[in-house]
């Protein structure tokens, strides 16, 4: 059974397109929200979104997209990609360089890639419209690869010549956390030596607005306050997109290559609410069990945890469920373990969230800080008994949990520890 370490990170997010920018945004509470232009229509009550910066992917034709330096993507590669796969590809280039991997480290039988993305609703919509208007033979041969879920791994496995294990995970907002857990298992069980974990989402109107009619999105038009997990007046989540790649390696590889990891992945757990397709269990039953299983897998007691990166998306019901789950798992220690939701700064990345927030935890473990929970003016009484961080603390955590929950009541918790 091998130990598993995070040795590389790549970020394309609303709060920065590299680790340095991301960390500084987390520490200084710089959020990524704007008054999103495509939402400024009379029949769209949602007004705010956190877009990816410096990329422009609105054009129907990928050859017209703006891709910032240093990223260069050839036409033959771009033609089968939606924005989510593009962000993922750039994040992967970053992560490979960050982990100082050579091409032979990336492409070999013992290196795999697990990914999560909902596909590209915008491209799917355009594609199906064209198919019905002009017939199936007038549609680009690779549009289907660009729009269905799985698009991220189709493109990245081909583009980076991955020869090990590869697949995608579909558990809505828990997807990339599932990808991380199962990638960890591939290495722990000795089936792979290295795994890339990828989360990505388009994060545009077509990806986010489908959540409006179930009243899950914030209607607050103020970018500075719309996303406020744990605040008494929160009214829904704010969407975002982008891509995050984590490089996971076995202990043997870490020693062989002589690199310093960000963090160790100590274990993970998952459990389901068995309750409702879209509403979390009122007591956060599944999430509590996921946390207990993660602790057990990592061989840890609740009292050893320094910080929890909560799933909390800023929805009235979801955040409250998580508070119940935290109190149930931590008991007397609940008042001391630091908790925050970084979605207050980034927004909710759906399939991207699990990987992105684990990436934030990796930075926190390596560089010695605990991100605060931003935009809280009045703490919800439902958070009573919990230590919700109101500001970032420059205290180095040693052991961390990262929570993610998705539709249908899927819950994943990953336990991370400082490396070395």
């Amino acid at each position, binding site marked *: 059974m091998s130990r598993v370490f995070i040795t590389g990170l790549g970020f394309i997010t609303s709060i920065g397109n590299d680790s340095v920018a991301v960390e500084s945004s987390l520490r200084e509470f710089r959020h990524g929200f704007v008054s999103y232009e495509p939402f400024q229509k009379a029949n769209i009550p949602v007004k705010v979104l956190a877009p990816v910066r410096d990329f422009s992917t609105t054009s129907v034709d990928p050859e017209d997209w703006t891709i910032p330096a240093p990223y260069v993507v050839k036409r*033959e590669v771009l*033609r089968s990609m939606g924005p989510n796969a593009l962000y993922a590809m750039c994040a992967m280039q970053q992560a490979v360089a960050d982990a100082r991997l050579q091409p032979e480290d990336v492409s070999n039988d013992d290196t795999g890639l697990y990914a999560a993305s909902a596909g590209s609703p915008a491209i799917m919509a355009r594609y199906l419209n064209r198919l019905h208007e002009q017939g199936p033979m007038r549609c*680009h041969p690779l549009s289907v690869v660009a729009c269905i879920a799985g698009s991220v791994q189709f493109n990245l496995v081909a583009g980076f010549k991955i020869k090990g294990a590869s697949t995608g995970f579909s558990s809505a907002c828990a997807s990339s956390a599932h990808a991380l857990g199962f990638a960890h298992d591939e290495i722990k069980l000795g089936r792979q030596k290295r795994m890339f974990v990828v989360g990505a989402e388009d994060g545009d109107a077509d990806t986010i607005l489908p959540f409006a009619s179930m009243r899950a999105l914030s209607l607050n038009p103020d970018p500075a306050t719309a996303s406020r997990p744990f605040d008494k007046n929160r009214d829904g989540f704010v969407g975002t997109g982008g891509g995050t790649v984590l490089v996971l390696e076995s202990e043997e590889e870490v020693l062989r290559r002589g690199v310093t990891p960000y963090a160790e992945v100590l274990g993970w757990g998952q459990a389901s609410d068995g309750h409702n397709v879209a509403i979390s269990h009122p007591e956060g039953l599944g999430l509590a069990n996921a946390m207990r299983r993660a602790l057990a897998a990592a061989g840890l007691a609740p009292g050893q945890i320094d910080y929890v990166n909560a799933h909390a998306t800023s929805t009235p019901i979801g955040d409250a469920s998580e508070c119940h789950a935290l109190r149930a798992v931590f008991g007397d220690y609940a008042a001391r373990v630091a908790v925050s939701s970084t979605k207050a700064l980034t927004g909710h990345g759906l399939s991207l969230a699990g990987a992105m927030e684990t990436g934030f935890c990796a930075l926190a473990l390596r560089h010695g800080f605990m991100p605060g929970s931003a935009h809280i003016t009045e703490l919800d009484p439902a958070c009573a008994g919990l230590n919700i961080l109101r500001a970032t603390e420059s205290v180095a955590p040693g052991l961390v949990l990262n929570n993610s929950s998705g539709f249908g009541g899927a819950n994943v918790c990953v336990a991370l520890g400082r490396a070395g």
Partner: protein
Amino acid sequence: MSSTASSVPDFDAVEAQVKEALRRCSPSTIEAALQYRRANDFSRLPLVIFGIVERYVDPALRPQLAAAGVDDLRVVEDLGLDSLTIMEIVMLVEEVALVTISNNDLRELRTLGDIKVFVDCRARGVEPPKPPKRFDSEAILAVMPIQPPFLFLDDACVSPTQATATYRITGEEPFLKGHFKGNPIMPASLMLEALGQLGVFHLLNGLVSEPGKRVDPGSIFFASTDGVRCSRICRPGDVLALTLKPKRIKAPLVTFEGYIRVEKEKAVSVEEITLTFGLVDDVVPSEPEALPIKSPPTSAT
């Protein structure tokens, strides 16, 4: 008296659609496409196809399209287009030239010339030429008067206007031991021989047809050659790609021009290679003779 108002197609809409579809092609391509659509000017089609192919070729490989012999450029091997890019090209050609190209048709389009000829025929409503016939080594061995260890054709492809073949220098060829000692190199004379053998094969596969007669395999001989240039040393492992095109046919002589490439490099070019050949009657196999019916033995009692 009723007048039949002639329906003038709304060309503005067509023009807008063509310009949008070809927006990443050169202005001359767009102009040719508009001329074709406006006036059914088929002579513009080759330019349109060239322009569409050019648009999809990697900028680094585009200079190839400016060279001579462009119609022989193989879309996969020379222009680096994968099968998906060929589908993209076909889709744009279909949209602009208003033709349909099926999967079967697609398989046979190997060179730029193939595409041009095919689309031109389709657009005119004319049957495109039959795809070239392909032969594997068994089929070649069955007809050739030349055999191993002196046969330099692994597989071949024959159409009325040209023959192509490949030969892989294995390294086991007996003459390589001596040419050169310790440094096996395919002799230039044998590369020329290979082209000649392809000419033999072409003669035996329909290059010359006369009613009631066929080419006699035992009658084909080398006559002359001119303008032979060798520009690449070929070694074991190299695959020679041979191309031969008839220039003049006047019995008993046929003159070809041809060349040999290895991957993208030219290895040999021949301005003329001439073979003599003889014809024999095409003998129609007769009905097998009826077996004599033996009368059943009478039992002797």
